[in-house]
């Protein structure tokens, strides 16, 4: 196995033992022949151990593409054409670049190190298998010593950790409610004690009350089990409460990356500001919802320069020719916007705090 692992030699990757994932320059294209569409371009971020990283963006911003690329589940015509996803195991084993890892190496990492919760739990569970069997097969694949009975017992135990009665292992997916299925999906993701769980909008299909419950459970389980989460959603307000750090995606690029607090209090990219101002705050005085005029760009013909410039309320000369790069300004709060290049004066938050209007 070690023959196939790519040892990362970059100094940054070596130094950071507290990191679980280094994503560098990740680029994913659809349709490699002829004229490919870039759904993810030059995506770079670091995920710390036990951290929740939120990824937010509109439909078509490349969120889902990022998920399948990170978990190496993409199918043709999607293909990773550049970049690396370096995974650092907790036990100090050699780092693995998931992009170049062999299928064998990947399969060994799957679920034991890297698992996923899919958006719709309705469709994510096999309709003709009992719940317990869907836990047991993954448990026994990664632990050959486990016998059938022990695997089913472990499945019941896992279900109780997300508040589902253990005797439900005998149920088929269609016999569970939507919320139960989604929680079962989370319990399933944690079955083999992964270090990283990728969650693809796991609460979109359930009502708000269930959403609260599930998120509280995710936070509680992360405290006790210490896994890191990449949480992808279009719902920035949810991330502001849940995530430690948030990456904002636009047209396949990360345009801003900072702590949840930073993004809430002082978003520096005009797009982030637009997103934040598109929904009502949960625990703050109301302000006027403004939204973002225009539509996301057609990735087959991306705009020149900054991809957001056609919709940007603060664009200025040069935005349509010069592509800003994330992190040029330095610091921990990264942003890809020319407003930020040196002249920070223009980044004042334009909140219209006249909630009394309504």
């Amino acid at each position, binding site marked *: 196995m070690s023959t196939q692992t790519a040892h990362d030699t970059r100094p940054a990757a070596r130094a950071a033992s507290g990191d679980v994932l280094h994503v560098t320059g990740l680029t994913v294209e659809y349709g490699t022949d002829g004229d490919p569409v870039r759904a993810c371009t030059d995506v770079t971020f670091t995920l710390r151990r036990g951290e929740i990283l939120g990824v937010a963006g509109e439909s078509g911003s490349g969120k889902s593409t990022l998920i399948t690329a990170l978990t190496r589940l993409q199918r043709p015509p999607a293909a990773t054409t550049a970049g690396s996803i370096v995974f650092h195991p907790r036990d100090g084993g050699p780092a693995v670049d998931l992009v170049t890892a062999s299928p064998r190496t990947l*399969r*060994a990492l799957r679920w034991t190190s890297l698992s996923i919760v899919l958006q719709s739990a309705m*469709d*994510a*569970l096999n309709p003709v298998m009992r719940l317990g069997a869907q836990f047991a097969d993954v448990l026994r*694949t990664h632990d050959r010593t486990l016998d059938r009975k022990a695997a089913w017992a472990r499945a019941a135990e896992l279900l109780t950790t997300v508040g589902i009665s253990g005797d439900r292992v005998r149920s088929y997916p*269609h016999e569970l409610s939507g919320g139960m299925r989604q929680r079962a999906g989370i319990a399933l993701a944690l079955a083999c004690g992964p270090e990283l769980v990728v969650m693809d909008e796991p609460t979109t299909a359930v009502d708000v009350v269930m959403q609260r419950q599930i998120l509280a459970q995710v936070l509680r389980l992360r405290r006790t089990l210490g896994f890191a989460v990449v949480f992808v959603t279009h719902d920035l307000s949810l991330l502001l409460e849940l995530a430690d750090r948030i990456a904002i995606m636009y047209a396949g690029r990360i345009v801003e990356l900072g702590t949840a607090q930073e993004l809430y209090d002082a978003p520096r990219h005009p797009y982030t500001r637009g997103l934040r101002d598109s929904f009502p705050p949960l625990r703050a005085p109301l302000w006027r919802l403004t939204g973002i005029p225009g539509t996301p760009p057609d990735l087959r013909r991306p705009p020149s320069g900054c991809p957001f410039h056609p919709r940007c309320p603060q664009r200025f000369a040069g935005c349509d020719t010069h592509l800003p790069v994330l992190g040029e300004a330095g610091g921990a709060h990264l942003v890809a916007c020319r407003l930020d290049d040196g002249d920070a004066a223009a980044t004042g938050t334009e909140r219209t705090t006249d909630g009394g209007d309504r």
Partner: protein
Amino acid sequence: MRRWGFLLRRLGFYAAAAAAAVVLNFLLPRLMPGDPSSAIVEELQRVSGQQVPPETLESIRAIFGDPDQNLGEQFVGYLGQLARFDLGVSVVNFPVPVSELVLQALPWTLLLVGSTTVLAFVLGTGLGVVAGWKAGSRLDSVLTPLTAFLSSVPYFWVALLALWVFGFVLGWFPLSGGYDANLAEGFNLPFLGSVLHYGALPAATIVFSAFGGWLLGMRNMTVTTVREDYVLLAQAKGLSRGRVILRYAARNAMLPSFTGFAMALGGVIGGALLTETVFSYPGIGYLLFESLNKRDYPMMQGVFLIVTLATLLANLLADSLYVVLDPRIREQG
């Protein structure tokens, strides 16, 4: 618990259907003009050129039924006959009972059509999974159009061509029959060898014509099933490829095919009329073909009844198995 309720309801339905089949099978020939007794009497008069003596008329009516008898009485008599598995006497092969002829033909049909139906299903479904799992691959882009073309060739043409090429021109296989008539029937090696030799060509033509449908159906279902999230999740779980394909993709993609397979099994008893006719194979299909040609009413009636009941039985079996295969069905009536 729920499963048993479901089965009981199905059983009730099938009992009702079987009763209806028996009534129809009794009624239809009697509603048609003419009856076996009158037909025989007329035939006798035509051949001999004189009146049939009353005692002959009596015995003919005793065997083939009296057309003047009350319908209710006839039905009671018919039910009594059925209970004794007495399907009447064949007119053409007089005086051999229909039940005996059916029992003679049944093993041949079960052997030939039964085994080829299963074989075609297994082969087609297996290849369909392979083609659908990697849709657009070289195998898929050759196999799928080729199969679509081959399965659209009319069966009788395939059978005649095979018979002409392999039986007549090349002489590899016998031209007709189910076994070598010079050998003693029974469980001895030469006889069983001749059964295989005689059956190979008709079996091959059936499989050739039938597997394409299974392949195309399964391939298309697999293509859609592979895109399901639970298959993606199975891959994310790091399960072996074989397990993902069999337990997650094929297991679900097979459900619609399975219904078709159960129907096909029900049709097995009816025999493959074209196959058995082209190859003069001594099965139920050939029996039916002969009785149709020679207007052997009791024979036809007997075969129809057996085929109807067998189809119902196969469907009941399929329904019950489907409950096991798809847990979601148990909720519905």
